[in-house]
């Protein structure tokens, strides 16, 4: 049975259900469960739900240790940038342990962090930094764009035996969506086709999925049918679904909220060029954030971000229906 709930409620529901299902799931981090009225605390108690000091290295490192010792911690990090304080644990500890032990240990750990809060949060709380985690073998990276996926991907992340960076988009926090009740799992590595179309393939993640769908509506009015694909997980990345679409359309626009050289779209472009080149009828076009720290003031913030106008413009460009911008 599905009903409409906000994205953030879907995430919490998944954590709650998984904690009820499995005693080894823990939930800890800064500024959570500070009173006895906390829903998680009431349901699961102080052993499994704990507030931590502002100590990211300890929080994530303890997550690694608790995971090595058989638990399934979900570490609440709030802002993706806070992981930067503890990069060694994220990049050089959690994903290395299993490999370096020759498979003798595992680290089932979820690092939950919001990203992309381009709502006047200025330069240090707005980043889309998922790209830097894509090249770390052993780490998985998840970017839900809908409330249903927010739930299903969190549940899958908690049950996964590997460290998972679960990045939820701050602009989507209150976005409602149909979400199945009860146990609901979305498998990793399966892209979702959000809109079917024959003329061009648009790949987008997180909040930009909505922007791409809005662009597709603009284009439909012009007789252009865009296919919009949401990879949902960047690691593992479902290249097959993307290439299958490109084989149909021959045209590609990649949308990403990150600056180009740190974007997932750069990696996806390289994969398409590698395994889908013969299907291409033209160059791959990327619509990414511009190469600037995200500015505070609204007009400048909007200027650096991808939007439906920029995406539609890029589609017209790859279709040759509009002159290349000067």
């Amino acid at each position: 049975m599905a009903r409409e709930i906000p994205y953030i409620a879907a995430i919490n529901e998944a954590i709650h259900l998984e904690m009820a299902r499995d005693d080894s799931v823990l939930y800890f981090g800064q500024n959570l469960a500070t009173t006895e009225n906390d829903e998680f605390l009431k349901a699961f108690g102080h052993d499994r739900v704990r507030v931590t000091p502002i100590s990211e290295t300890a929080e994530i490192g303890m997550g690694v240790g608790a995971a090595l010792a058989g638990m399934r911690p979900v570490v609440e990090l709030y802002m993706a940038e806070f992981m930067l304080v503890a990069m060694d644990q994220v990049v050089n500890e959690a994903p290395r342990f299993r490999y370096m032990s020759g498979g003798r240990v595992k680290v089932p750990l979820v690092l939950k962090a919001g990203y992309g809060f381009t709502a006047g949060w200025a330069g240090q709380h707005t980043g889309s930094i998922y790209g830097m985690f894509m090249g770390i073998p052993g780490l998985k990276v998840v970017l839900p764009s809908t409330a249903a996926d927010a739930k299903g991907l969190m549940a899958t992340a908690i049950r996964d035996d590997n460290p998972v960076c679960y990045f939820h988009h701050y602009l989507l926090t209150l976005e409602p969506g149909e979400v199945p009740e009860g146990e609901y799992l979305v498998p990793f590595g399966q892209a979702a086709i959000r809109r079917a179309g024959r003329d061009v393939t648009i790949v987008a993640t997180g909040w930009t999925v909505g922007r791409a769908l809005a662009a597709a509506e603009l284009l439909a009015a012009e007789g252009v049918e865009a296919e919009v694909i949401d990879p949902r997980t960047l690691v593992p990345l479902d290249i097959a679904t993307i290439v299958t679409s490109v084989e149909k359309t021959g045209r590609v626009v990649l949308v990403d909220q990150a600056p180009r050289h740190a974007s997932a779209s750069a990696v996806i472009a390289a994969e398409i060029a590698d395994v889908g080149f013969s299907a291409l009828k033209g160059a791959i076009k990327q619509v990414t954030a511009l190469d600037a720290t995200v500015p505070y003031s609204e007009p400048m913030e909007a200027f650096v971000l991808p939007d439906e106008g920029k995406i539609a413009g890029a589609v017209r460009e790859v279709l040759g229906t509009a002159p290349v911008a000067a």
Partner: protein
Amino acid sequence: MKELDGDRLIWMYTQMLRIREFEERVKHTFEEYPGVIRGHTHLADGAEASIVGSLATLRPDDQLMATYRCHGYPLTLGTSPDAMMAEIYGRSTGVCGGYGGSMHLVDTERGFLGTSGIVGQGIPQATGVAYAAQIRKQGQVVLCFFGDGASKQGAFSESLNVASLWKLPIVYVMENNSYNVVTRVEQEDANAAAGEPLAVKAKAFSMPGVTVDGGDPVAVYDAVGAAVDRARAGGGPTLVESKVYRLSAHGNIIAPPGVPLHYPEHEAIEVFGAREEYEAAKRGDPVPRFRAHLITAGTLSAEEADRIAADVREEMQAAVAFGIASPFPAPEAALNHVYA
């Protein structure tokens, strides 16, 4: 903590000798079999009494984590020296199948959950293991081993704060060997520069801090044992500063491929010209010191001690032979174990 009887003391001496002999075999491998050991190895010679005295306090279901200087712990716990040497030689028969090497030994069956090769970063991990133990309520205790240098990492301060706050069942064993790589502790530690023991750091986290002679396994057993008892009873963590003297250099030389690797002289001599400091440490070598103590006390005869030494030499020579004779992993095995 239980009183140590004669058999246990002899067991401790045997383990100290095994660590020493294993490390000697590792060191000699650079000469006997050039090129067999790659990268960087770090030896525990000089810290045997501290390692064995600490681990002698544990129950079989207790757990520990350590650093890249990690050969001594699994040896004491009973991990096969054959599989350890094979790991250091990069062989498929290694304790981690050749994926980790010298710095990343693991033996989960014996409670040794692993190491970090990055200074201080294993401390929060061991703290997380202790959090899991606290929840599990089986009375398990965790030992967290690290060096003096690691105590200047944020990971140290962050972890000790949480452990004390949450009363986690963990003992932080700082093996203070007075050097971080080639820097003397007085050059980089405010407490040391002020003439205070590093154990005073515990005060900032409202936990006990004790300093012990890490060259005396019984003293270490008593100090760590009291901390383990306290942790097991729910009293929370303790910082034990165990003063040891590393008898080898920090590690083998760091050099690009083609340059034969070897162990340089200890930094006291090589960098600081302090030969007498090193010679004094050699005179205080914990292994012969403990042997003399046991013989004087009548716990062990010289003949028995010699027989133990001969057995240990044979055991570790066999480990070298096993490692050398073992096959390398198949190259394509590199893609196993990336994900669980």
